């Protein structure tokens, strides 16, 4: 003769069952969520298209800064103020190029772009302003004689500009170098700003672009003072 079990209200059974299922789902969710989170954490970093474009184009841009600085440093009659500055630019930009090309090599990307500067949006309605809203920047247009030869990168010296520098000596070489390098740095600054303000860049690229803006901004000020001390002014923008 067994004792009769007390009757359990049906609603209580349903409540306990529902709670158990909820706990189970929560546990499953937690595990899946943790796995998902862990997968996110383990994901190897990648370079966005803007990261790649910036690294490709800025390193090519730097190549020319290094060439300009190397050229002036070897010209007769150029003083230590300028050769010292040139040496600092060569050192800094060579190191930055190693970083930029190190990224490209690490991630298996080409060192040059198929379509240079395409990572910077073109704003046809705002020509020549140098920069648009939210980090968009216009591409510099080349002189009409070279219209079919593709756009120049912002601030780059032309072959004729470089040849002229190589032919100068003394103070004239110093002035032309400073004028070319200020314009070159202004172009570099635009590119760095565009990368820094772009939502698609990785934090590392953003930080590097910011450091370039700081360095090149300071050097523009310094070179402008050196230029004015030589009775000359920057090239028109």
């Amino acid at each position, binding site marked *: 003769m067994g004792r009769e079990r007390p009757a359990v209200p049906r609603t209580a059974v349903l409540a306990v069952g529902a709670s158990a299922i909820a706990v189970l789902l929560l546990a499953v969710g937690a595990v899946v969520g943790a796995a998902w989170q862990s997968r996110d954490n383990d994901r190897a970093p990648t370079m966005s298209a803007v990261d790649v474009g910036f690294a490709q184009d800025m390193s*090519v841009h730097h190549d020319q800064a290094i060439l300009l600085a190397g050229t002036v440093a070897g010209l007769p009659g150029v003083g230590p103020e300028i050769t010292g500055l040139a040496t600092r630019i060569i050192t800094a930009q060579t190191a930055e190029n190693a970083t930029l090309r190190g990224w490209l090599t690490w991630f298996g990307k080409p060192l040059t772009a198929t379509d*240079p500067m395409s990572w910077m949006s073109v704003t046809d309605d705002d020509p020549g302003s140098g920069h648009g809203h939210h980090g968009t920047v216009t591409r510099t247009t080349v002189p009409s004689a070279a219209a079919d030869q*593709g756009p120049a990168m912002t601030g780059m010296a032309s072959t004729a500009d470089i040849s002229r520098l190589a032919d100068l000596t003394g103070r004239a070489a110093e002035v032309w170098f400073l004028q070319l390098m200020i314009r070159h740095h202004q172009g570099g600054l635009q590119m760095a700003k565009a990368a820094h303000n772009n939502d698609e860049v990785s934090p590392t690229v953003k930080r590097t672009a910011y450091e370039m803006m700081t360095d090149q901004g300071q050097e523009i000020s310094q070179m402008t003072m050196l230029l004015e001390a030589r009775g000359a002014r920057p090239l028109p923008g």
Partner: protein
Amino acid sequence: MNNKLSLSHRVRQRAGVVIALAATAVLGTALAAPASAGNHYFMDVGDTAVKQLDCGPGSSPEAGLSGDVPSADRESGRSERGYTCNMKLLGKAQGAGGGIVSANYDHCSYTGSVFSTAITKKNTGVQVIDAKDPRNPKIVGALTAPGMLAGTWETLKVNKERKLLAGTAVPLLWGGGFFAVYDISDCAHPKLLNTGPGTKTPLPFTSHEGGFSPDGKTYWASGLSPGHLSAIDVSDPRRPKVIWQGLYAFVGHGFGISPDGNRMYLSNMAGVTVLDISAVQRRDPNPQVPHIAAYHWPDGQLNQHTIPVFYDGHPYIITIDEAGSGGVKIFDVQRVDKPALAAQIKLEINLPRNLDANLRSSMGGSIFSYNAHYCSADRVENPTALACGWESSGIRVFDITNLKKITQIGYYNPPTKRSTNPFDLPNSPHAIGSIIGLPAVEFISLGMQTINGKVRLHEAIGPRTGKIAFGDRSTDWCMSPPEFRGNQIWATCSDNGFLALELSARVYTPPAGQNTTLGNSTS
């Protein structure tokens, strides 16, 4: 048992392929960045030796594997008499040694300099040789501008159209800054043109190697590490200017430029990188140099240089590896993004299965052994012959009229200088390099073929195995590009210096429009 053997053989083969793939990928990606038109890998490790024509009367041929100078010959002194096949020596000018790369123009030859001559004060600078009488060539002068003085490595090149000779200062592996360009219209009396930039003041470039664009208006300086490339404008050779500079690989080397001056095939150590240099060639105001493709292969490293040629208007490149017994490879490059391997040239000593014999005899020599180094074709359009400085295998000449039937038609491996005092040859990189006795540049390929089961390491051991230092110069190094002159071939080897050779009329008829090309110089 047979099944087991064949299984183990298959496993080894597969492992070999995997190793080769991995080595190529690692070298390719580490040393050359990928390109927009893609990286292309060629895994066909050539295991067939080039056919050989019989050696005619007067020859003193090799007895063993083609290209080899066996241990016995090195030990017995046989190699001091040299080896010839359908070629003979007309005359020579040894001087203090032959440098690495020399250049020729008109009836003259210019011997590249090595830094040590600036120290010893013997035959200092680039030596000017008058070879009007090839049976009696004479050193008639020296070029001692800073760009020529302390080593020119692989930079000494001629542009025949503009009658220019140029080179850069490369004391040891890597140099730059000083650049010298000479007017060689009176070839025995070159006149320095750039007395200012490049001579009095340095130019902003680095170099290991260099050469002219076909029109002679640009001198390109390249290499070594980092793989920097500079375009020096020599439109006005009195005032050379670096007008463009870039970096395309972490290691760079020589190159070849297409006849229109628009495409460069730049060595990237595990193959070649293809660059579009047309904007610099055109002197665009704002030139860019896109990296359009890269070709890689596992057998043969330290790609040296490339010779663009045409067969019936169809573009090909002949490209040369200076390490790993890669030999010479010829690619169809009609489509840059779809290159095809058309032919390979290897001597028997370069074959994967013979790399043990290669190590056995080359131990106690020096760092380089039986590799091709610099070659030249006898004309750009439908070339009929290719002549190569094949390091310890001497000068080798091939009939390349038909790429499917390439044949070696002659060779001249000069008598060695084992019994001479190395200090008498300060301009010989071989004499200097013989401080090392180990053929170090072979070991990547040797390792790959050991894993692949083709090399039996015990067969690499021989009487010279212990000679890891102070090589005995029981071969020479022929590093310089030979030049076709009718049936004569002018060449330079490190110990022997300048050599005027003759190729038998039985095996070679100079084609109409014979005009030697090496891809970065016309001589």
